[in-house]
């Protein structure tokens, strides 16, 4: 292992910031470091963090996906509907497929019509949210089987199930990005799309892939939220897209593409979660919490931009 490289890495810098934040909060509030509180934070973070894995891939290709919150909402509703109709396992898998399909549609439109991801996913955001409202007529779907709640509220080996799911998704995401050829292609096409294409890589397929994965993970988070609240509500996940993008960006992934990692995004999501939790423990009003989170995102992006400039100054 090359320790010098680790110390110099972006992730390490963010991790230090995270540690400083945690130390500060544990000094300021005695409740912060309790096992119960840490699991609570991790559980809250898990929904955002899971989608962040997909978003990291999308942003690595220099794209963006604004539809994650709405896709989450639609799948949340569909999962409730399907589970009531077809039973637990078939319902969950069909709902997951729907999330995947919505992401796939994002990718296909971006690639085939050569449209900016911002616009396409903005459209999808409205469509998915609208459909969720149409299907439910605005009312939550309740009356889900009790065992479905285990998915979000249960524990396995003493750990909350959502946290376990999050860890699995991160391990898979990490291996996918760092060890597989598709991961290599994702980084390459974000670094220089044209050169990657001219090397014989089907960049379009890669793009469709990352949006599909993001759709799938948004769906997964949607199902977990349905389990947690034991209902399907059309307004679930409103505003999630910004939290997810925030987590990825705080994690050091470059919005211009080509640079970043899921590890960074996990730390980014944790910073956001810990900060929110800490501010609650410190009795800071919810209104001010928003302001502070916003500031953190801007500072993180400014830091990233400074890093980029200093690494380019040698040219």
């Amino acid at each position, binding site marked *: 292992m090359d320790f010098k490289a680790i110390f110099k890495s972006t992730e390490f810098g963010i991790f230090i910031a995270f540690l400083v934040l945690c130390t500060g909060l544990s000094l300021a509030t005695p409740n912060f470091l309790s096992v119960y509180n840490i699991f609570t934070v991790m559980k809250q973070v898990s929904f955002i963090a899971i989608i962040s894995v997909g978003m990291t891939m999308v942003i690595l290709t220099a794209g963006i996906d604004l539809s994650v919150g709405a896709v989450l909402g639609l799948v949340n509703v569909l999962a409730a509907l399907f589970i009531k109709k077809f039973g637990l396992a078939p319902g969950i898998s069909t709902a997951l497929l729907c999330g995947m399909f919505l992401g796939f549609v994002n990718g296909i439109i971006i690639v085939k019509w050569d449209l900016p991801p911002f616009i396409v996913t903005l459209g999808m955001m409205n469509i998915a949210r609208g459909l969720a409202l149409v299907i439910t007529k605005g009312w939550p779907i309740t009356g889900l089987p009790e065992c479905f709640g285990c998915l979000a509220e249960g524990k396995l080996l003493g750990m909350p199930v959502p946290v376990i799911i999050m860890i699995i998704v991160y391990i898979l995401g990490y291996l996918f990005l760092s060890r597989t050829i598709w991961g290599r292609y994702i980084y*390459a096409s974000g670094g*220089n799309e044209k050169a990657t294409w001219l090397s014989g890589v089907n960049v379009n397929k890669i793009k469709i892939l990352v949006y599909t994965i993001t759709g799938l993970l948004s769906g997964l988070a949607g199902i977990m939220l349905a389990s947690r609240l034991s209902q399907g509500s059309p307004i679930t996940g409103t505003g999630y897209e910004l939290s997810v993008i925030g987590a990825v960006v705080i994690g050091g992934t470059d919005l211009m593409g080509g640079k970043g990692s899921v590890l960074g995004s996990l730390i980014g999501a944790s910073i956001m979660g810990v900060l929110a939790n800490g501010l609650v423990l410190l009795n800071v009003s919810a209104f001010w919490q928003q302001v502070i989170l916003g500031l953190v995102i801007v500072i993180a992006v400014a830091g990233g931009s400074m890093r980029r400039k200093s690494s380019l100054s*040698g040219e």
Partner: protein
Amino acid sequence: MKKKTTAKYILEMENVSKTFPGVKALNKIHFNLKVGEVHSLVGENGAGKSTLLKILAGAYKKDEGTITLDGNEVEMTDPKHALDLGISVIYQEFNLIPNLSIAENIFIGRAPRKHSAFVDFSKLYRDAEFFLEKIGMKKDPKTLVSELNVAEQQMVEIAKSLSFSSKIIVMDEPTSALTKSEKETLFKIIRELKSKGVSIIFISHIIEEVLEISDRVTVLRDGEYVDTLNAADTNPNEIVHMMVGRELKDFYPKTEVKRGEVVLEVKNLTKKSKYEDISFRLHEGEVLGFAGLVGSGRAQVMRGIFGIEPPDGGEVYIKEKKVKTNSLFETIKMKMGFVPEDRRKEGLILSRSVKDNINITKLSRINSYGFVKQKEEEKIANEYCKRLNIRTPNNKEITRNLSGGNQQKIVIAKWLAINPRILILDDPTRGIDVGAKNEIYLLINNLAKEKIGIILISSELPEIINISDRILVMREGKITHEFLRKEATQEKIMRHAALKN
């Protein structure tokens, strides 16, 4: 401020040096400019001309040395500062905004105002007309720049420099896109500017025109200062000799390879208003040169064959098997590689490592169930770094940090990794230093020995003539002549490339 009227030189650059990571771009360069003089800067690509120019323009900071302007030492901080000091640079790629008028372009960012917030258009057009008249350009200043041809756009750039009351105008390859009569007009303007006391730094590859227009010529080579000569006392041969600085014989190595079977056949390839009816054959172990001026369509033909910009008609056969001409995935599968002209934009992922760049063409083969075989990846990277003598600290180095020559070798390496039958090289030595050029020539030789068919596009005639076995000349989208290596001379090729028979 008291002006020294005795200053002989309006500009003096002494001992100017500049180092980039891994490469010393300029080493103690001297350059000076008299009032009302045309002083040319010549040298091969990578000799340091553009670096020197960018230092003068305030785009780069020099590492050491002094710049004296009008008797006062100055330190250019940024392009705006250089402009304020009276130095204008007209780059090869113009800095004009196509959808604005001539007048708006000349006075961009400093248009005359009335009532403090509104542009005073009548004054804007009057002022623009004044400067256009100065250079004898008879165009309505309201004309949009997008409606002008290249020569006219260049004149707008010159008018813009004059409007800054620049005392020094730098022209970077101003003639490269001009026709003969447009060039005459440009030279007339230059002479007029000269007589008005404006000093001009002129950069061009065409030595004859350098000697025609300049008072003095400074030669650079590999970032070193060679000499400054009076244009009247020298001749093209002497200058070329100074530029190259060595016997041309061993600079262009060439081993004869017995050519094998036809590996690529192109029949009647056509793309509307780019090229038409292109037919030729390429043999194993053959180096086929494509000569022609920029815009002759030679690069487009190659991009058509490879499948980047598919042709409208015609056929391409690789090893007698017909290939679809609209997909580069197809041609790559048939083992064709393409080294593009712009390696930074099209050849490399600059933010990724040497290893990643070399392996990008190979990943689809070195994996099991999608997982990259990392040991093999490592092995391939090291093998090619060694074989092509790629100078990098290790294979994890970010490609951006390497010199142009080493970057180009990486682009070639990534295609060698697919064991190509055919390799198209579009101006492979553009902008790389002389040493690396020589290495690339040696490499081309070795690849030919390995029975790879090679297509070489180059703007440098000596390169084409000395490295190719056969040369096809293109003009206005058509092949106009075929030469064997021994028949070709620069003059003959130029005649077929530039003149209507």
